[in-house]
């Protein structure tokens, strides 16, 4: 007896798509692609338990389902709300959504430094992209922002908590990729921070992936050589034989030199195959890698859109000697 899986029909901003039951609104939107996809700062499809926190992916459900067409009373998070058959969702076409999202972006930015030009993540920061699309250029927040000193968590990773948006992704990554989580969320409310409590080295061989899942410049690669603006580097798909991981990575080249290595991300900034610390931090010779060809960065990001391609300010060293 062969059974055909019933599909659910859902309409997002007027575009219809059929998906498997259990699919979330966000993933249904990603099947459609383009403008109907809500931004997601905390959800990460491969990390169990992620999502629901940043609230940037809020959408309006204008029709609950075919069976119960009543609209949902409140906006819902698309990353964690499963679709129902016949559901109608509004993302960009809802004023309520755009208003709430602008509010969320404003909240995310009130304690975030406004120094994108000198941030290591500039040019590939999801928050920068989000703010560009949904935020206002001025802030109404007139109080001191919370700041932290940069700290080294181990020989490879730098934590600049000031930039963290508490998406919890790095915590889930450590939980799910390693068996000895050593960092976590300390304190609560707006005093909450990512930390190890006491100085500790994160040393698990997969811990480097926290850098890739971090949507902002809070966790960065200390071995990143020539830490200039990323748009001066050329991303290349590359691989190597690795005992530990798939060995499939992106090497970011400056001339003939490997500036840094990251995992490969899809168009939504998500890594599907995590890489090990050796590949990421220790293979910095071109000869370590088989270069496949240029990596197409097809995200609609400020890297490709050129919004932030300004001259690097004079005080950021082109050569990172640290």
């Amino acid at each position, binding site marked *: 007896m062969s059974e055909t899986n019933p599909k659910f029909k859902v309409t997002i901003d007027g575009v219809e798509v059929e998906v498997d039951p259990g699919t979330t609104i966000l993933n249904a939107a990603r099947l459609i692609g383009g403008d109907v996809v809500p931004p997601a700062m905390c959800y990460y499809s491969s990390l169990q338990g992620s999502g629901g926190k940043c609230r940037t992916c809020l959408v309006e459900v204008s029709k609950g389902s075919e069976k119960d067409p009543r609209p949902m009373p409140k906006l819902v*998070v698309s990353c964690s709300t499963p679709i129902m058959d016949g559901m109608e969702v509004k993302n960009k076409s809802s004023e309520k959504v755009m208003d709430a999202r602008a*509010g969320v972006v*404003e*909240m995310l930015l*009130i304690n975030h430094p406004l120094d994108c030009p000198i941030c290591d993540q500039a040019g590939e920061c999801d928050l920068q992209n989000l703010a560009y699309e949904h935020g206002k250029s001025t802030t*109404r927040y007139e*109080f001191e922002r919370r700041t932290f000193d940069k700290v080294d968590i181990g020989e490879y990773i730098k934590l600049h908590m000031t930039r963290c948006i*508490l998406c919890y992704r790095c915590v889930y990554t450590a939980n799910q990729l390693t068996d000895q989580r050593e960092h976590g969320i300390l304190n609560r409310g*707006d005093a*909450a921070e990512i930390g190890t409590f006491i100085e500790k080295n994160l040393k698990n061989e997969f811990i480097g992936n926290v850098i890739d899942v971090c949507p902002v410049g809070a966790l960065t690669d200390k071995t990143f050589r020539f830490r200039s603006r990323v748009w001066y580097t050329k991303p290349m798909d590359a691989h190597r034989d690795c005992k530990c991981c798939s060995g499939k990575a992106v090497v970011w080249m400056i001339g003939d030199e490997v500036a840094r290595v990251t995992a490969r991300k899809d168009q939504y900034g998500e890594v599907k195959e995590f890489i090990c610390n050796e590949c990421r931090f220790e293979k910095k010779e071109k000869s370590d890698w088989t270069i496949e060809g240029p990596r197409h960065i097809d995200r609609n990001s400020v890297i490709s859109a050129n919004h932030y391609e300004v001259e690097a300010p004079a005080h950021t060293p082109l050569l990172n000697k640290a």
Partner: protein
Amino acid sequence: MDRKLLLEHIGVEGIHTHDVYRKQGGYKAVEKALKSMSPDDIVEEVKKSGLRGRGGAGFPTGMKWSFIAKPEGVPRHFLCNADESEPGTFKDRYLMEKIPHLLIEGMILSSYALGCNQSYIYIRGEYMYVLQILEKAIAEAYANGWLGKNIKGSGFDLDLAVTTGAGAYICGEETALIESLEGKRGNPRIKPPFPAVKGLWGRPTVVNNVETIAAVVPIVNEGGDAYAQFGIGRSTGTKLISASGNINKPGVYEINMGITVEEFIYSDTYCGGMKNGKKLKACVPGGSSVPILPHYLVCKTAAGEDRLMSYESLSDGGFATGSMLGSGGFIVYDEDQCIVRNTWNFSRFYHHESCGQCSPCREGTGWMEKVLHRLEYGHGKMEDIDLLWDIQRKIEGNTICPLGDAAAWPVAAAIRHFREEFEWHVNEPKLCVTKNYGLVTEKKFEPVNA
């Protein structure tokens, strides 16, 4: 109908002990239920009683119970929410301290009704001495065969234990409570799944407030219909009210729902009127989260009818001119109190208690506190009032759990009803730090900000 259902025997010497409680008719409901009622019979009686959750949301208890999932072979859990941290609320502590066996009896009945064999009372860490009272009472209940294996030969097993929080208002939210009970940070869970399907340790779970659980005892003893004779309309039964603020007789009162607010504040049976002969300025009728009412909307609704102590009447007029019964934390303010200061104080509370998981609440509560602080200390600007309005609007409804709403509502209500007092703080920056504004003038509500 002045009879009390929960606190009837509160005055009896030694009522906190098993033997005295038993002599006053205690554990009769358990005997009755185990002998002659099926679990579903109890759920049915609770439905008939019209009992609504006493923890704040007022959700019908019988309906909540009927949602619990019953997958084969998976244990279910029943939890008592004794986290009581909503400012203005202290009734659960009173009940547990004075008559702990009433809660235990209610726990047995509820656990039986839901088919749970392992139940917990989660009590806030600051109530450590109450925890000891409960543990003593639980030991007595075990010793007398009301807990443990095969209770009174019925074949029903129940283990009951008390477990503790450690200072976090958010753990009163039921999924945060569950996380905390699992030994974690009190971060509310993202729903769905709801606890009725996946709660404690991933198992179907029901969480109820102390007072809700205690009310199951008279419901089983006298029947749901008899219980529903108390109260008014859909506000059946009696309610414990914690009265505080500038009144003559603060304390915990069991009221028959439906008495007037005026009677509650001014009669000697209850609050005994305003302290020092001052005038009433405002009232927060259901704990700090619910909208504050200005004096002219406390005893009368906007339509000029008597305001009653009931779910419906206190919320008459919606947020425009009404409030909520909430947890029954009834806070009374006299003419000498400053609304801006009180709003700042509450904002600081929510800022302090936000778990920090979701961005609007984590960032917005602190922002509101800072703006309110500036207004209260005479450094505010006129635009701050609209800014506050906008911040609370962006938090409300956009967060994981209702703490965001709870932080937004008091600010919204204060601006809605006391805007002139906020403006006065801006216009009189020197005066506002030495003097209070006094009573606000009665105004016709303009429905723009509803």
